[in-house]
Every structure is written in C-alpha cells, then in structure tokens.
C-alpha cells in the first residue's frame, strides 16, 4: 500500500513539475505547481513528517501560489508572448541535467541502506507539532524573537519604500507649531 502510494505521489509530483515548465499558459503552470506541491506534501506524510507536509501546504500552496496567481492576473501575460529558448540556456540546462544524473547515479550505485529502526527513541523534532512547538519555545526562543524583529523590519521597510510620504502636511503642521 505504502509503495503504491509512493509511486502514485512521485508520478504526480514529477509529471506536474514537468508540466509547470512546458505549459504555455501561466495560470495553468501555477496550478500545476500547486499539484506538484501537494504531491511533495504527500511524500512527506509517507515519511511521517506530518508537520512539514502541513507547513508546505499552508505556506506554499496557501500563500505563495496564490501570490503567484495574483501577480499573473496583474501582469496580464499572454500565452503567445513566450520567447524561444536561447542556445546558452539549452546548453546550461543540459549540463545541469547531466550533473544531476551523475549525482543520482553515484547515489544509487553506492547506496547502503541505513539500519531501519536503529534508534526508535530519537523521534525527529519536526515530526509532531507538540515536539516542534516545545523546541521553539524553549531551546530556540531567542531565534524566534529575532525572527519577529526581522518580520517587523521587513514590514516597516515595505511600507516606507512603497507608501507615499506626506511631507507637505507635516511641514504645514510643523510651521504651525513653531509659529
């Protein structure tokens, strides 16, 4: 059953990933990306990494892909406005594919399966929500706080860099205050 699920999910992930690249319609490509992410999340579930699967769906499928869709709608791209690949791009992707193939081949040839169930006591930290949360609020409390500041600064930065600054109003109020 698990093997069958693994095969189905892998096929879904790979096929939709290929369709993301070759699709001429940007909206369809984004939807296939979503499907590919769902397949990956399913693979994580098979590995007992429920939290990771959940976060993947929540963050990528929920937030990132919908952001993509918004941007595609705003940009209003036409399907025929696609340029042919450059020779350099083709050569680079061939080289990248070759390297990846070599890597996978060497992994397959030298693979020695790890002893299964050697350490059942050591549950991975990211597996369950409870263990993850306990870690976040004890061991990694300081980085969590720092990340909070990071997000605050990023949000302020977006506001500062995009919002129109109302100088004239403040200047008139300033002059009113000093007068």
């Amino acid at each position, binding site marked *: 059953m698990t093997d069958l699920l693994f095969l189905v999910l892998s096929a879904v992930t790979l096929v939709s990933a290929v369709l993301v690249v070759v699709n001429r319609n940007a909206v369809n490509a984004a939807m296939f990306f979503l499907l590919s992410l769902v397949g990956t999340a399913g693979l994580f579930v098979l590995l007992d990494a429920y939290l990771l699967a959940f976060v993947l769906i929540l963050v990528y499928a929920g937030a990132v892909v919908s952001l993509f869709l918004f941007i595609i709608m705003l940009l209003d791209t036409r399907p025929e406005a696609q340029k042919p690949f450059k020779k350099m791009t083709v050569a680079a992707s061939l080289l990248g594919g070759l390297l990846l193939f070599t890597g996978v081949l060497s992994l397959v040839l030298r693979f020695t399966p790890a002893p299964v169930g050697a350490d059942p006591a050591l549950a991975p930290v990211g597996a369950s929500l409870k263990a993850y949360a306990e870690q976040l609020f004890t*061991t*990694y409390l*300081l980085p969590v706080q*720092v990340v909070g500041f990071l997000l605050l*600064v990023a949000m302020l930065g977006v506001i*500062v860099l995009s919002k129109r600054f109302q100088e004239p109003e403040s200047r008139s109020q300033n002059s009113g205050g000093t007068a």
Partner: protein
Amino acid sequence: MSLELLKAAADSNQWWALAPEVMLACAALALLVLELVLPRAEHHKIPLFAIAAQAIVLVGVFLNFDTNWLGESTFGGLIRHSNWGQIARVFFVLSSLLVCFLATVCLPRTRMPRVEFYHTVLVVTAAMMLLAQSDHFVMFFVALETVTVGLYILVSYFRDNPLTLEAGLKYLVMGALSSAIMLFGIVLLYGAVGRVEGANGAIHTGFEFGTAAAFLQAHPDNFLAVAGALLVLSGVAFKIGAFPFQIWVPDVYQGAPTPVTAFLAVSSKAAGFAVLLLLVRNVFAPLQSVLVPVLSLMAGATILFGNLSALTQRNAKRLMGLSGISHAGYLLLGVIASFTVPWAGGAVWFYLFTYLLATMAVFGVMAYCTGENDADHELDTYDRLSRDRPFLAAVLAIGLGSLAGIPPLAGFLGKLILFIAAFQAHLYTLLAVAIVGVVLSIYYYFGWIKAAFFESWRPAFSTETATAAPRTTPSLFGTLTLALLAVATVVLGFFPGPLTSWLIGK
C-alpha cells in the same frame, strides 16, 4: 526530548546576559511608539532619543564589562559570551551611534520618513551584536538575515533617486544569492556531521559550532564538510566584499544614502570580519591546510583589485567602496595570521577601530558637502574646501591620512600591528602584496586631499558649477563629533596603549 531536558533548556534562557541587545530592541520599538504618541511638532526630537538610548547602551556595556557570563554559553548553547563578543558590542554600538549622527545631517534634506530609519539601524545593530556572539548556526543565520533584510531597506531608502533604487535592487539580488550560498554550506555541514549523542542523553547536531568543530577535527578530509565550509566562507566573503565576490560594492556604495554607505562600510564589514574570526577560531580551525591557501589567494587578489580599481576613480563614494575592498584585503591578512598567531584577532579588531574612526570622519565631511542628490559626489565637489570650510578640510585630511596609513595617525599603527602579526605568521608574499597596495592607496587618497586643499585650474566658464557645490555649515553638535573623531584618530596614533592592551592583551 524529555520534559526535564526542556526545562533545563528554558532555564538557560538568561535574558539579562543579552541586556544590551534587548535594550536596543526595546529602544527601537519605543521609537515607533513615540512617533505615534508625540505631536508632529515634537517629531524632530525622536532621533535624539535614538542617539541617547545608544549612548546609554554603550555606557552600560562599558560599566559591566567582562564581569558576568564571560566565557559561558547561554540560551542552550545558542550564544557564547566572549571577550571578542564584548569588543564587538562596543564597536557596533559606537558605529551605529555615528551612523545616526550622519542620518540627522542627511535625512532632513529629503522627503522621506525618518523614524523608521533609526528603528531599522537599531534593530540591525542589535542583530549584529547577536551575530558576533552566536555559537550555533541557527542563531547565526537568523541574526545574519535580520542584518541583511534591514540593510536591503536602508540601501534603497531614498527611493526618489534612481541610482538608489538600482543600488537597492543590486544589493537585494546579490545579498539573497550570498545568503543562499551560505545556507547551502550550513546544510552541507549539518548533513556531514549528522547526529552525535553526547553525555546524559543530549543530542548534538552539526548546527552547534562545538560539535561541527569536533567533527572536522576527527575528519578533516570529509569532502561534504569541506565543501560546506568553503560555501559558508564564500557567503561571508560577499558581506566583507572580498575578491571574487566584490562586484556589488561600487554601485551599492554609490547609490546608497551617505549614512547607509557609512553603515555598510563600517558595521557591515566589521560584522563580516567578526563572523569570519568566530568561524575560523571556533569551527574551521581544523581545516587550516585547505583554508589558508584559499584565504591567502583571496586576500592578495582583494588588495590588488581594490587598490588598482580605486586609482582612477573620481566619484567619492565609489572611491570609499573600492578602497574599502582593499581594507578588507588587509584585514584578511590578519584573519589568516590568526590561524597560527593567537593575538592576530586582536590586531584585526584594532584595525577595525582605527578604520571606524577614520571612515566616520570622512563620511561626516561627505555628509556636509552634499546636497539632496548624494550619489553624484565627485571629487570636484571638494574644490576649495580648505578655503571655504577649513575645519571640514582638516578633518577630511586626518581621516584620509589615517586610511592611507600615514605615520603619526592611528591608521598607520593599525596597519603596522596587522603586518607584524602577518610577519610572525610567515606570510611574506602576502606582506609584499599588501605593502604595494598601501603605496598605491596613498596615490588616490592624496588625490582627494589635493582636490580639497589645492585649487585646480579650470577654464573660466566652468567656475560657476564649482562654486555652486552645496556645503552645509556643521552644527555645534556636528562640529564636536567630527572634532572628537579627528582628535581620537591622532591621539590613538600616539597612545595606542589602552586600546591595544584591551584588544590584544599584551
């Protein structure tokens, strides 16, 4: 993990140990609250609050210096308090204090919100202080990203100027690339180390500096770990602007607002070197045989590239950027020496302090010599500066002289101590390259001094553009700050004793 272990981890979260960082962060939040609470007419007092808060933090760090927590690790091994960490705290607060002073000069000229600038500077400074004390790759990366995200915003702050936007975009792309490279290196190290079971059932991973160092000690020829270490160092090299990763420097330095350029030149570079010293000393020390040749090549190329490209530069901010690359090269010399000579790390910090004083003096003069568009800052702007504003010209000459390493000034001693460390580490070839670099640097620094002190001949029709160069008269506060920087540069050149005994401990 059992509940007892979690309780122990929670008990090691000693927030008092991080009082300076917490105070800076609270001050940053207070700035935002003040902007909401105060009436608009009082808003010009908010920068003064930022400066006062940093001054209090600086005094606080000095007062309980090396008394508590020194040599201990808190937050479950995320933070290790060390002498260098304290030095870094003093350095970063001093630097951001001066950046805020530059901002009080430059920001009112533009139509941009002000409070957010000081807020971001304070948060970035606190993150740099954490970065210099981190002992764990998770803490390290989170602090580094906070620094980088804050700097993305600061670099593109004057968004009305197209050059600033270009600089912001370039910094964003290059910074994201360098973060990705560094993260990839960290992950490779983590994967290579795997899980290590320690005493009393605690599990250690490659994220901890100590565990990674122990693994590298045992397996110095593990390919994955060495590749990870090299990738991490490449990410750091982006931050300090060392040779193959320096392409972003001139454009970003030119386009960024002047206070931010100073922040990049001093704090960001020093953060890079603090990290480099931390990694070289705590994690990558066993990889000496691989890292010394790589870093040596990098240092030599950095010195030559920085000096040669600065030779023909006429834009003042690009000149500071390119010469900053060469300073990164000299500092790398000290980092390489610290593999074999233990006190070389202190020499790096001494050089950074002299660099801080001189660079901030030069940027202070630059802030008073520009108008609204501070990206087009040619050396011709300084024509007749010595006649119009003799004080600014004198400060400029002292700052540039110290950067060039002219004998009675502090910069000379910084270079001398660094070169002695390199000599003791037997880095003779690199020393020769560095000395050639110093000689080259005198040419372009004195070109700038010449532009300020000696009238250049120009055809009669172009004199109007020269006299139209905008110059602001420094306020009393500004005069005092610039004078303090210049006097400190001179005095440190004659009496380096207190600072060297603190940094190097001789």
